[in-house]
């Protein structure tokens, strides 16, 4: 199995979720991160003092999937999250050695 980690623009979460759902993904976990990258951070001003904040808000998605589904998932995220502008984010694919479903104790693909 694979763990797919994606960093995306926050307002794209809904589209990505729907896109994943439409290709049969049944689960995912989503968190907030601050991203640093090519996309410039934003200027903030407090009482006349300007600060350049390097980090921009991003959403981090984790999806564990079967080996076979991995590339479809990557593509689904890619197409849903793309705006074409800098800062659209990255997708990583990692190998997962084992998966367990807590409720049933199932292991492997059944646990997803």
């Amino acid at each position, binding site marked *: 199995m694979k763990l797919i980690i994606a960093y995306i623009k926050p*307002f794209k979460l809904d589209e990505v979720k729907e896109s994943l759902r439409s290709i049969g993904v049944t689960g995912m976990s989503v968190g907030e991160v601050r991203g640093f990258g090519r996309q410039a951070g934003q200027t903030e*001003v407090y009482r006349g003092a300007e600060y350049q904040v390097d980090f921009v808000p991003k959403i981090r998605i984790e999806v564990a999937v079967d080996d076979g589904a991995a590339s479809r998932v990557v593509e689904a995220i890619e197409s849903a999250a793309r705006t074409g502008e800098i800062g659209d984010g990255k997708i990583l694919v990692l190998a997962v050695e084992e998966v367990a479903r807590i409720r049933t104790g199932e292991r492997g693909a059944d646990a997803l």
Partner: protein
Amino acid sequence: MDPGSIAWLLVSSALVLFMTPGLALFYGGMVRSKNVLSMLMSNFFTISIVTVIWVVVGYTIAFGADLGGGLLGGFDFFGLEGVTGDTLLFAVFQMMFAIITPALISGAVAERMKFSAWVLFVGMWSIFVYPVVAHWGFAADGLLFAWGARDFAGGLVVHVNAGIAALALVFALGPRKGFKEEAMRPHSLPLTLLGTGILWFGWFGFNAGSALAADANAITAFTTTQIAASVAALGWVVAEWWKTGKPTTLGAASGAVAGLVAITPCAGFVSPLASIAIGLIAGVVCFWAVSLKFRFNYDDSLDVVGIHLVGGIAGSLLLGVFASTAVNEAVGLDGLVFGGTTLILKQLGALAVVLVYGFVASYLLARLTKAITGLRADEKAEIDGLDISLHEERAYVLTD
């Protein structure tokens, strides 16, 4: 004026001023966290804009000696010239109404209107709409007042006026990206509830202060205000409990505000028992009215139309039903339940006048604003949030 009444009007003025920050929080809690500062800023800055305008021309347009036909006050009090003592106190008390009225509108255009456009619109509206309608409804020689329509503390002048302007502005502005598709949940209901508390508190100054003295009429207005707010919250919550299965905090807050709106034109003109009926009707009707925007497809973000316009109309008409010259002679005519049929017709007429003028004038000012500054923040700003885009600030930084 006796010192007791001066004391009461000073306090009332402070209370009504305090309502605007309260409103800012009430609205601020309801928007998404990326737009809360833009909401607060629109409200706080409205205090600044309107204060200046009111001092210079607003007061005199509203309360200067009528220029003829009850249409406009003259320029006798330009720059508050010669306004001192008790008159100055009245001018300041009324200033606070002039401030909160456009501030109310901000809820309808939340999360997408440009700040520069807001500043321009409020500036013009505070010259061409608010003081004009205030003259009609509040000045002794004003069109509607002289005709016999009544508005104790601003059901027409404040709430209907703000509500219809909100509708006009929403038409000119268009809906938020994602309206009816995304949830757009309130980001902090505790903030909204705090705002509700402040609004309720301040509304005693608004309504009971409008008696313009520390007297029995102020006591009546105070009482009916408290009752209508309470009963309307009850009405709204029961209605939603019955309809959706759950009583909500936002429902209680919204109901209370609906009740406060509806009692505003009536406060010192009706009995405590009548205020129960007014509150109940307002709570249920406004609960129903906030769903209209989905049906008719206008994005009144925080329900200024559903609550202030509809609640203001309800209250203004219900005055025609429950007004009692026994409670207060100054209302002039009795309402339906006391056998009077004239007042409600005058209220209807007055409503029509304010609705038509308010809509047309506000819509024209919105188009004018659009021509000058544009009305909407661009799409990227709307997506990233107005706080960072228009104000270069973030509301919450919990990570430093």
